[in-house]
């Protein structure tokens, strides 16, 4: 009897092992993307906006370090800080005071620079509608299996972002550009990060699926800069991107850090403004999305020396089936209604003042005209 149980156990172990392998193979195909792209934009001109260039370059550095090659990064810098005549250390852009970290590096490739960074060029890069003579390094050649990271920084306001002190892009234009990208199947999933004043207003109007957005401050709040360097004379980084860079320096290509960790970067105690995020258009749970899904270019390769017999066909990823049925629903779905909050103190006070003045001047009797 015991021997029989023992033999049964011996037989079931290899069977259990191939089951394990099949589940691993199933997991292998569970994330939908096969390549990564990044579009990093700095929209400010002039020397005192040094920090915006440093912001963009620190994200560029992290993204390159985690594996995305230059050919898959579209870097747009609206002004040149590294070789600016006011820079006491030419060919460098520092992110920490006392010149600790040079984010410019020795092999940077800037695709759009100076006057080329305009709203039109940015939207053309996103939607792919570029003139035929545009070189490859200036194009976003993504497909429907690409995960794209979009990072914007500069000066912004409620509902707009300023480009080079002369033009603006509104949140509606951005939402429409992303919808064009969705209709043309130019992305699988998109992560949008913005570090400007009132950044949350820029992602309010998104309505395309598979978008996740992060911003450094809510509507009505300003994003603050971090620290000046007295030798260079300007502020070097913005607070949100500074702590984002610190967080990303800990991430390596094999790390399992997920989006929930990213949402916790720079709480109000450090950032003074309240960072916000939006995940209602994203299908997967943010806790299951790895940082390297967007910031890195992790190739899913597992090397094995054993032959594995797959008995049953590998389950196609459930996500794809869901995608086909959900497309019609999602595109007609309105974005989730925000919860109603009672009016803010300031608005209440203002209305009280108005009513008080009205009744003071005209008396109670006018109520009969109103009611």
């Amino acid at each position, binding site marked *: 009897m015991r021997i029989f149980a023992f033999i049964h156990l011996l037989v079931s172990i290899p069977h259990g092992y191939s089951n394990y392998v099949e589940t691993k193979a199933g997991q292998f195909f569970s994330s939908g993307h096969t390549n990564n792209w990044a579009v990093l934009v700095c929209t400010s001109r002039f020397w005192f906006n040094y920090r915006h260039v440093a912001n963009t370059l620190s994200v560029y550095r992290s993204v390159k370090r985690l594996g995305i090659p230059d050919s898959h990064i579209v870097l747009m810098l609206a002004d040149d800080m590294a*070789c600016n005549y006011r820079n006491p250390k*030419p060919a460098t852009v520092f992110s920490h005071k006392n010149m600790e970290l040079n984010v410019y590096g020795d092999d940077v*490739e800037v695709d759009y620079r100076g006057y*080329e960074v305009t709203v039109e060029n940015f939207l053309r890069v996103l939607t792919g509608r570029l003139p035929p003579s545009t*070189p490859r*390094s*200036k194009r976003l050649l993504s497909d429907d299996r690409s995960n794209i990271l979009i990072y914007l920084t500069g000066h912004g306001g409620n509902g707009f972002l300023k480009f080079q002190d002369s033009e603006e892009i509104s949140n509606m234009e951005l939402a429409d550009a992303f919808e064009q990208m969705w209709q043309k199947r130019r992305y699988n999933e998109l992560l949008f990060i913005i570090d400007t004043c009132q950044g949350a207003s820029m992602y309010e109007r998104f309505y395309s699926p598979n978008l996740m957005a992060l911003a450094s401050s809510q509507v009505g709040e300003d994003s603050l800069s971090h620290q000046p360097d007295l030798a260079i004379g300007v502020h070097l980084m913005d607070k949100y991107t500074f702590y984002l860079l610190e967080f990303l320096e800990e991430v390596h290509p094999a790390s399992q850090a997920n989006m929930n960790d990213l949402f916790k970067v720079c709480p109000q105690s450090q950032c003074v403004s309240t960072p916000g995020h939006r995940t209602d258009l994203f299908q997967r749970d943010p806790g299951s999305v790895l940082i390297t899904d967007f910031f890195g270019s992790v190739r899913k390769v597992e090397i094995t020396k054993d032959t594995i017999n797959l008995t049953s066909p590998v389950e196609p990823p459930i996500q794809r089936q869901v995608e086909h049925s959900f497309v019609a629903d999602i595109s007609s779905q309105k974005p989730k209604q925000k919860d109603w909050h009672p009016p803010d103190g300031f608005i209440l006070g203002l209305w009280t003042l108005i009513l008080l003045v009205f009744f003071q001047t005209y008396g109670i009797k006018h109520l009969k005209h109103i009611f």
Partner: protein
Amino acid sequence: CMTPAKDQFQEELVIRPLHSGDIYASFQFRTLWDTDFLQEGQKKVSHYRLFPKSLGQVLSKFSVQELHISFTQGFWRTMQWGQPFIPSPPGAELWVWFHHTVSDVDGNWKELTNVLSGIFCASLNFIDMTNTVQPSASFKPLGLGNATDHRFLRYATLPREIVCTENLTPWKKLLPCGSKAGLAVLMKSEKLFHSSFHSQAVHIRPICQDEQCTSKAWELRQTLNVVFDHYTSGQGKKEWSLFKMFSRTLTEACPLASSSKVYVDITDNPELFELSPATPLLSQAVVLGDRRTYSVYDLTRAETFGQLRSFNLLLRWKGDNMLRPLLHAERYVAGFGLQTGEIHTVIYNNHPYRAFPVLLMDSVPWYLQLYIHTLTVTSKSRDNKPSYIHYQPAKDRHRPHLLEMLIQLPPHSMTEVTVQFERALLKWTEYTPDPNHGFYVGSSVISALVPSMVAMSTNFTQDQPLFSSFVPVKEESSYFVRVYTEPLLVNLPTPDFSMPYNVICLTCTVVAVGYGSFYNLLTRTFQVDEPSPPLAKRLANFIRRIRGVPLLA
């Protein structure tokens, strides 16, 4: 089995101490390839070894005969530094000779600038018809080519273009060894851009392999010229080493190079000069009209690197002696206000007794409207009439001005060329985001054959150092020189871009307040109203109404 195309690669570094205390380092990398990109009927070239594929494909796609592109930061000070080996104007300069079989030169030019902007990470796509000219005499082909039709030549310059690490990175990637071995290891951007002058260029042209020109080859030269100014900016003494200049030393030659040499100009040795490690190899060359002696270090030989496997050159010098440049020029804008102005170009001929002609080429953007009837050329306060003038007037928003003149410079004199202009008002969408900075006008180009004190050698040898063989020498008694003037920065009348917003606010406020009040005055009617009774009376009336009893007054 096809025999592979023969290609060879040479690299060289020339270090020349300048009389101002600065040091001039010039890198040249040359790839020679026996192939023909433009031959029709033959299979397209597909196997690239030392020649970079990205450039080869560009040459064959656009049928380019010669291509010269340079990116420069800073201005070459001829009076303090002498003549450079390869001159270049500030900003970006691109001039191309197309093959005579091309039918649509303008279309090819537009696409070529876009492709090059992608290769070099520069905004060369801003080159269009408004800043391209076709010089008739100034930019003759430097390689083979009996092209006399200047319709196949295009020249454009972007004086505002910045040069930084993002331009150096793709430039280094074109080298066969990249920046991993050979002389290119010295190119670290933090040191290269901390300099008075930095210029990197790519020159492609077909050349003859031998005296009789039986076989032709394509030559690609990548040059990088840099002037370090640690002495004049007060950061050091007149003592230099490779490590101090580049923060690196040389450890090996590029394995793909057939020759890898370092030349140091020691014409003033030993009284003024100390060089270590010393070398017995010396070479003499006549370059730019002057006979100079060079110490040669051959990096392909292992003994150059010594015990430490690293080669660090040390120079210490005490005095300075410079040959005064025979030709130099400057340019500036005169006048005041934002309506008119005058461009002055001053050319100096410092030769004591010889006069020689120079070709002056000016390309002025259309928004500075030149009045050519005010053009004057004076030498030694007398009128000097040019023997050849080619002028193409500008067309608004279409074409810039092109002025080419052949002027005879009297010996030991100063020649001044002046022309008046008027500033145009641009449309509000044509201004750059920072219009108060000003608008740039590209450098003037002065090309001349300057008489030489020393006989130049016209022998064609393959062993000539690269720095003396860039420009082909046709006769013994003169050498070719190209001098670039400063670019100009002019202010155009700029509107106040915040005014439309201000005007809208002001007008709407005035209209609202004025019209609103007016409407009220006209339509409001006044009625007499009884004062309301006090609360007690109102309550009493209310109760009386319920009871059905007549109300109080």
